[in-house]
């Protein structure tokens, strides 16, 4: 199942309505309350998968919209009761690091629940980096450039040494070979500019 097929998912399948029907019948006398509630839920439930995250909209009087970015997904649950498995459904429950014990977003009503799980897994935090067994080395100055850093430092030392040798051999004053200092020393600390 490819990415486009997941992006195309929007409405839950009619099997979800059958599941809701069975559930509300099993709820006994409460059926008169749960059946319309679940029917509206089924009727208004919309999912949208895009490049950044999952968006779920549900509700007719009290609307609720949940947006979860893939990178914030902490763990993915796939859970299914007997009736759900008979209907070929499963809940994909998605959690972020929020303070609730329950799932932030539940994707229900799709036969492709395992494909959705794998799709989300490939995008969640910690699964996207494709080289887990060789973590990048910590920035270690002597290792970053390796020998190059040492070579460069030695080069600077040699430059300094030659400059000093030149200074030692130059005529004492009034030499035309040396330009005037860029920053004329105003104080003894002015030596640092040279």
């Amino acid at each position, binding site marked *: 199942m490819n990415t486009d097929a997941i992006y195309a998912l929007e409405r839950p399948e009619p099997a979800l309505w059958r599941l809701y029907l069975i559930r509300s019948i099993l709820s006994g006398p409460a059926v008169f309350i749960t059946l319309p509630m679940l029917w509206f839920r089924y009727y208004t439930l919309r999912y949208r998968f895009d490049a950044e995250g999952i968006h779920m909209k549900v509700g007719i009087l009290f609307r609720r919209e949940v947006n979860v970015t893939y990178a914030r997904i*902490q763990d993915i649950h796939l859970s299914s009761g007997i009736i759900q498995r008979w209907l070929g459904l499963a809940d994909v429950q998605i959690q972020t690091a929020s303070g609730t014990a329950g799932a932030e977003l*539940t994707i229900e009503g799709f036969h492709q629940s395992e494909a959705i799980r794998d799709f989300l897994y490939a995008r969640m935090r910690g699964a996207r980096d494709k080289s887990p067994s060789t973590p990048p080395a910590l920035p270690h100055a002597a290792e970053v450039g390796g020998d190059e850093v040492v070579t460069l*430092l030695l080069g600077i030392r040699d430059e300094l040494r030659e400059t000093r040798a030149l200074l030692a051999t*130059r005529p004492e004053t009034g030499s035309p070979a040396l330009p005037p200092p860029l920053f004329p020393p105003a104080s003894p600390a002015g030596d640092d500019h040279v």
Partner: protein
Amino acid sequence: MYNAFRAACERVLRIPHDPTPPPGDEAGAQVFRAAPAYFKYRLVLWGLRTAFALGFGLLLLVGLNLALLNDRDVPPLVRTSVLVATSLPFLLLLAHTVFSLAILRLDYEKRWYVVTDRSLRVREGVVTVREMTVTFANIQNVAVVQGPIQRALGLADLQVETAGGGSAHANEKQLGPNLHVAWFRGIANADEVKTLIQDRLRRLKDAGLGDRDDHAPPAGAAPAFLDALRAVHAEARALRLAVSSGQ
């Protein structure tokens, strides 16, 4: 007999196939299973529960019917019907007990704890099948929990927690356990699994929330690098001395 029951359950309950490691991580996957002692442990708990329930039921049944038998005024028809009516729930309880024992066995067999290089996957359950996938990057802490009976049997539960959790005041109503915890129930090698998970966590720099600690030695550790720095420093100082003495 049990095998037939298992086959029937797999068919009727539509128990999904064995879990596969998350895609892309099949190479380093290790599968852990509940230890045989875990079945014994559940059996002990089941035995205690069953003894209590059946004992109570039997007491009620015998007590009620003895009271009726001793009462001469009750017509035999009523007596028989009461006997049947009270035995029926008891028989149901008995059947449920046997069924729950078989489910217990199946539940023990249908447990998988998969650890890959990058993630964990825990599958459990027979009637309600639950599967949790979490990457190491999201794991906050790992705990080993052991009760007295479990200690006697050499078992432990490994608890892997992610951020969040707390009371179930979700906006969506949620019945059931805290979804922020992955349980490796009834494993005999909890310490080994814990070490494995901790090793893999250590290799991940950004596991969990919060700032990471760099335990790397400071940059100057390489001797060649230090020597070169010292040489440059000495040269720079000599240059300054030469300049200041020249003026």
